[in-house]
Structure formats: C-alpha cells, structure tokens
C-alpha cells in the first residue's frame, strides 16, 4: 500500500534534473521517524531536560518582545488613570487596612498563643514556608493541557514541586523550572491531583482536575460521604508538597446515583485559576531537598557521588513531622 502511494506521488514529480535533494516522501519518512523518536525519548526518559532548558533560554528575548504590547498597554493605562480614581481607591484601601489591621492583631495574639501551646505540648513547629512573588507571563498555548509560564525560575530559587497560590487559594504547582521562568500546571489539568480536606469536618480526599476550566472532581468517595454542596476544601498538607490550610475549592454539587457506589462530587476552584497575573510560589523547606536532588544532581557529579541519591530522596519523601524531628540531630 505504501508502495502504491509512493508510486502515485512519483507520477507528478519533476524530471530528475530539477530535483534538489531527496524527494519529499523520503523527507517525510525521515522527519516523522525523528519526531516519533523524540516523542518516545521525551515522554519516557529524562534525557532532554537540559536541551529544553537551553532552548527556553533562547526563546526568552522573543517572549519579551511578545509581551511588550500588553506591557505598554498596561503601563499607559495606569498612567492615564484619573486622579479621583486614585483618591477614592486610596480611601477604600485605608478603610480596608484599618479593618484588616484589627484582624491582624487578633491573628498575632492567636499565633502567639498557638506557638506557646505548641511549645508546651512539645510539638513540632509548623514548617516555615518560603514564598516568592511571580507574574504569569504567558498562558499555555496547548489547548490540551492547563499550564502557565511564570517569570520566576531556578535563578530565583524556585523549585519544581512548589505550590502556586493567589489571594483566594491554590491555583497549581510548579512542574518544571527553567533559568528565568518556570512552568506551572494548574489544578484544573488532568494530570494534577491535590490532597484536600473538608474544612467543616476534616474529611480527607483527593481532588483531580478535569481538563476543563473551573471544574475539579472528587472521585472514589462513597455515596454516603458527609460532603454537602457549599463545603470548602482546603489543602491537608499531608503530602508534604502543599502547605496545609490553603483554600482549594468549593463543592458545587453532590450527585448520588443508584447505579454507582461512589458519589459524583463537582467542585469549583476558589483561586482565580484563569484570571490573575500575580501569583505566589510557596515551597516548604523539605520539598527543596527532594527537588534539588532530582534536578541539580546530574550536573554536579561530586556531590551525587558522596551522597547516595536514594537516601536523600527517601529522607525528602518522609512526612514533615519526621523530617522536622531529624533536623536538629
């Protein structure tokens, strides 16, 4: 069949003295094979991450040029904002500040008390989180995956695995870091799962993305599970990736059907997954050791020889309580 196809193409090819280089059919076969090898290598093995990093660095100036129109638009928009707008905004902000500072005092008192009680109980201190403010520079161009690119990368100490949050809740996770930018997979992506807890009763579950905007799914919960629509889901923190207590989603509907032992629970993410520019990249300390091992070890031969990679990895994967217990020794 392939021969026949080829033969058909040959009929309309030019006489040999016009032909330059190999025929287009040969080229098709060659480049198709090359693409398939690349796809297989990239999806199954990790050889190409260095190549990708270099190519992304090469694209950086083009990205800067592409971002220029919207940057200029925003800057001029800010410049021409009327005076009274600023004044009224200022007034509102002052009011808000006052309200929030009262709340903050309350919080300070509470956190003091909490710290005191924890030290009394000889409990582990909650791990301090380090956070970096980043800005979304581009939305993923691939309609099949939910990804964004943020303008902070390995040079800003962003590590793969860091949680990405905005003011209203978790929006995703850093899945790949480049030199000056990093790739964030949003919680609505099908490949991302996030351990959550129902704020009302502490029930643990795992939320999965659906590949659609503004929808999360809680599969594999029994039909009689105690979740109602309107329940707030927060991160449970037991995975050691996301800090505990961040808002993730609100349950929008719970459907129970007679033919399935599981409840069908649909949630709406509370963070502005699709509509914010500024985000916070939050990493908790021990994920760092896990991530650095994975991404930096191949470069530094000496360090990886002295430390056994498997040992470090297993230490990183331990739960936060154990990690904290081992730290002082």
């Amino acid at each position, binding site marked *: 069949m392939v021969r026949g196809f080829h033969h058909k*193409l040959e009929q*309309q090819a*030019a006489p040999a003295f016009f032909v*330059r*280089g190999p025929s*287009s*059919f040969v*080229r*098709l076969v060659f*480049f*198709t094979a*090359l*693409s*398939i*090898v*690349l*796809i297989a*290598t*990239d*999806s199954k093995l990790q050889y*190409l991450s260095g190549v*990708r990093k270099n*190519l*992304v660095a090469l*694209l950086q100036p*083009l*990205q800067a*040029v*592409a*971002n220029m*129109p*919207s940057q200029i638009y925003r800057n001029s928009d800010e410049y021409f904002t009327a005076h009274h707008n600023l004044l009224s905004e200022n007034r509102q902000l002052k009011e808000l500040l006052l309200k929030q500072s009262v709340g903050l005092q309350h919080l300070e008192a509470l956190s003091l008390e909490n710290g005191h009680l924890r030290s009394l109980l000889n409990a582990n201190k909650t791990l301090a989180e380090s956070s970096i403010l980043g800005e*979304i*520079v*581009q*939305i*993923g*161009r*691939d*309609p*099949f*995956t939910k*990804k964004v*690119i943020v303008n902070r990368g390995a040079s800003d100490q962003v590590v793969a695995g860091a949680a990405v949050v905005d003011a209203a809740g978790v929006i995703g996770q850093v899945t*790949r870091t480049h030199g000056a930018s990093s*790739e964030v997979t949003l919680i609505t992506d*099908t490949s991302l799962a996030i351990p959550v807890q129902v704020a009302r009763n502490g029930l643990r579950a795992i939320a999965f993305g*659906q*590949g*659609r*905007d503004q929808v999360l799914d809680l599969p594999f919960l029994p039909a009689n599970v105690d979740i109602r629509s309107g329940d707030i889901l927060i991160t449970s923190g037991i995975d050691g990736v996301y800090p505990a207590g961040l808002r993730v989603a609100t349950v929008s509907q719970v459907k129970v059907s007679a033919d399935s032992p599981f409840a069908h629970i649909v949630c709406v993410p509370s963070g502005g997954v*699709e509509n914010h520019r500024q985000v916070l990249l939050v990493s908790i300390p021990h994920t760092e050791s896990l991530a650095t091992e994975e991404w930096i070890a191949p470069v530094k031969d000496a360090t990886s020889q002295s430390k056994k990679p498997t040992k470090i990895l297993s230490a990183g994967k331990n739960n936060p309580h154990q990690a904290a217990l081992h730290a002082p020794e």
Partner: protein
Amino acid sequence: MHQSNLKSLILSLMIAFIATLIPWSAFALNLRPDFLLLVIIFWMLRAPNLCNIGVAWGVGLLMDVATGGIFGQYALAYTIAAFFASIYQRRLVLFNNAQQLLYVFALLVISQISLLILKIFTGSALLGWYYFVPSFSGVLLWHIAVKLGLKTGGRPSGT
C-alpha cells in the same frame, strides 16, 4: 533574489513566532490561528527550495518548546502538513484563489488532526468542536492577506 527571499523567510517566521508567543486571553486563545504553519505553507508554495519539510520540522520543534509539551508533537504535525503542501506544490499554478483557499484549509486541518491523534495517544481529554476553530480563522487570515495583495501564486478567480 534568493538572498532577499531567505531574509524575508526568516523575518516572517520570527514575526509569526512572536505573534504566537503573545499572551492571548482565554477567548482569543481559541480563535488564534496557527501563524507559524500559515507562514510555512506560504513559503512552501512560494519558495519550495528554501522552505522544505526540514524547516517545518525545526519550526515545529521550537513550537514544542514554547508550548512546554512533549518534544516532537508539533514537529510531527508540521512535517505531515508540509509534506502534503509539497506534493501538490507544482500543481498550484492551475488553482484559482478559491481552490487554493480550500487547499490551505485542508492543510491546516491535517496538522490539527495529526496533533489530535498524538494527544489522544498520550492520554489527553477530548476537546469540543471549537478545537478546529483555529483552522477556520487561519484560512480567514490567509484570505485577508491575499485580498491585501500578498502573492500566493494562485490565479484570481474567474480567469
């Protein structure tokens, strides 16, 4: 002559690439035509000695880097579309503008279908009909460019 063609090829590819990199918002993202593939098709019809399947493959690879997907997906899709562009390239002088438009549309759809098949193999969810909107907007863009005086090698219709 060839030198200037090569320069404009690189320049147009660069402009198309920057246009792809512009941060598009959700609605425009669904509408956005595949600028790079349009430019590649144009050059494959206009100057097949400069822009061949290899160039399409390389550009597709860059697109893979920009989208952050698995290496080789766009490269393969562009290669297949470029192959179909090349096999009918010599017949193109007989096409009028409407036929050429149909031909370009077919090429855009071919690249999208090959990408769709690859994505299904790697386990992505199926998208709705709006997945094919970029082909329509792409062919519209082509039509506008021809109306504005871009010489694509087709005859004006009716002659």
